[in-house]
């Protein structure tokens, strides 16, 4: 009595009809059937700027306190709306630029201590579930004193092969306006625009009862004012084309009641920035109520073609930046997360330590470590409630 693959049209018609029945179409795979509220508080603090190399400005770098609330509300049996609200308060100094010091030693110029700034971001997503597909519409608005962004997007998921294969297609756009804070002695642009469009394709495949894999491809085009208005001698092209390839793998390990997460991302763009990111996480269950998840993230980046650790007037080019973000460097972060489940709610706490260092392999000028490279510590606590 071997099971045949090709099915008769009558059988398909009957099955389609049967799947509309509530007792047959198990809800667990589709739309949420309860309201849930999630709250997260995050404290983020960057390490001090290196005293040895800093010649101007404040050593205390960025600190952020963020509050996030998410509400998921089912609408009928086949749709759900998700509302996200974020409010973050930022303070501290940030790198303005790097100049050439004695013995070619880079010297960091930091901004002065800033006043507190606030960013608020509100977003909504409507997801509509069908038997073999789902579609999501999303949009949002983010505002801070010098930057506004209006974003939106569309996601479409198509299930095949009894939901063992899922293809996801997504579109995103963002329309941003920059109004840099003006400061005496600095000449900054007054208002500029920046847009982005992103297209992504993902395929998810169930491999077995305990393993699932995902591959994704994303293309992003940024255009407009891509220069950092606060950096000294910063001038970047007005288009940036990014390509991202990603893989994810999840494996459940029955004997130890744990789940292994492997994620890999390869990034390239036409500024010649490229990076590899690996994330490995282990979710360990202790009974039904406790989860402890250590994870490690490795990041390795190659610099942009117009990056230099400091500006050299003698070999000035059209584009230039000494932003540490565009330098060649490596970063590693370790994270530990704990979740405690109660009957109708759960509590979570997570801590993360991120450290970055320049690539010093070559020893040439390009390879000098940018003194602006950031290291930070983050704490997040929060709870989820099912209503």
């Amino acid at each position: 009595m071997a099971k045949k693959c090709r099915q008769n049209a009558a059988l398909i018609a009957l099955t389609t009809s049967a799947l509309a029945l509530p007792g047959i179409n198990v809800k667990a795979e589709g739309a949420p059937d309860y309201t849930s509220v999630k709250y997260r508080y995050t404290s983020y603090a960057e390490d001090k700027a290196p005293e040895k190399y800093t010649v101007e400005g404040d050593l205390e770098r960025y600190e952020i306190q963020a509050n996030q609330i998410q509400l998921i509300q089912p609408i009928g049996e086949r749709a759900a709306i998700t509302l996200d609200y974020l409010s973050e308060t930022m303070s501290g100094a940030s790198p303005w630029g790097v100049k050439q010091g004695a013995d070619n030693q880079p010297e960091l110029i930091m901004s002065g201590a800033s006043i507190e700034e606030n960013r608020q971001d509100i977003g909504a997503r409507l997801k509509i579930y069908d038997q073999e597909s789902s579609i999501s519409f999303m949009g949002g608005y983010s505002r801070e004193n010098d930057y506004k962004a209006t974003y939106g997007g569309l996601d479409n998921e198509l299930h095949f092969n009894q939901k063992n294969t899922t293809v996801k297609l997504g579109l995103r756009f963002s329309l941003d306006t920059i109004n840099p804070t003006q400061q005496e002695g600095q000449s900054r642009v007054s208002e500029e625009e920046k847009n982005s469009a992103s297209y992504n394709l993902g395929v998810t495949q169930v491999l077995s009862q305990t393993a699932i894999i995902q591959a994704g491809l994303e293309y992003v085009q940024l255009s407009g004012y891509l220069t950092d208005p606060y950096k000294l001698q910063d001038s970047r092209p007005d288009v940036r084309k990014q390509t991202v390839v990603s893989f994810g793998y999840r494996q459940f390990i029955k004997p130890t009641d744990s789940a292994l997460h492997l994620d890999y991302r390869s990034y390239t763009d036409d500024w010649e920035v490229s990076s590899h990111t690996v994330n490995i996480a282990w979710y360990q269950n202790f009974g039904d109520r406790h989860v402890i998840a250590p994870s490690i993230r490795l990041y390795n980046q190659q610099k942009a073609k117009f990056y230099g650790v400091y500006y050299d007037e003698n070999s000035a080019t059209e584009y230039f930046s000494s932003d540490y973000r565009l330098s060649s460097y490596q970063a590693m972060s370790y994270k530990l997360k704990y979740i405690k489940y109660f009957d109708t709610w759960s509590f979570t706490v997570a801590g993360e330590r991120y450290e970055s260092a320049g690539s010093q392999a070559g020893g040439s000028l390009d390879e000098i470590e940018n003194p602006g490279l950031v290291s930070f510590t983050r704490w997040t606590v929060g709870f989820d409630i099912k209503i």
Partner: protein
Amino acid sequence: MKISRKPIISVLSFKAMGSPCKLHLYLTQKQAKTVPQAALSCIRALEKKYSRYQSDSITTTINRGAGSGQGLRVDSETAALLDYAGEAFEQSDGLFDITSGVLRRIWDFKSGVLPPQEKITQTLDMIGWQKVRWRKPYIELPKGMELDFGGYVKEYAADTLASFCIEKGVRHGLVDLGGDIRVIGPHLNGKPWKIGIRNPDDPEKAVAHIDSTGGGVATSGSYERCMIVDGRRYGHVLNPLTGWPVRGLASVTVQADQCLIAGTLSTITMLKGRPEGSVWLQGMGVPNLIIEENDPGSEA
């Protein structure tokens, strides 16, 4: 933390929808406290909702409104069941018909007497899904007609019960509602369930076994009730187009993803008879076992 989390088999026997039923479930100690009782309430609720005999069931309410000229608004589950009946009616060229229950009024298998043809002809006027006004979610029956969900609600209940248990975290088990079976998952050791198929000539004995680790199994047979008149056997499966018992097949067992689908396919095959039914079912590409009636003389 020291409580064993290993599930243990528990068997719950009860009677529902006019048949002996059994739930074989591997349950943890925690699940064992709640799941069987909750599952029982789940089946009782379905039984109450679709029973022909209960005065407040949806079936009785729809049937009472026959000929009133007013549509009755039904809930989404009933609507989906009616849509399914419509689909099965279409796919079976009118043989799977939930309005055919009225034939039972004239066919009394205990009496040993055949109903007169004119009475059958009269009754046929009150049969036909195409005569029902079904404008989702409103249903309206013409005068004299009746709906009966009995032909497939037991199979649907087996699927519902299995889904319910899966939602409660049960991963190994089998739901058996009077021979309509839905397997939740294999035995705890991964071995399949052995499902016996009754011998139509000796229903206490199994003629074959099916191994299943998941999905539905259903059997239609004419052996449950029948009568012999003038040396000819008349089974209880009635053709809604002719009003007469169908002939040719003694029992049809089908394995499918859902018990409901298995049940519908076996019922339609049974109604189509021999040889059409067998040919039709082979075209479905589902595992099946057909036992033909051993009396060739009974084929009309």
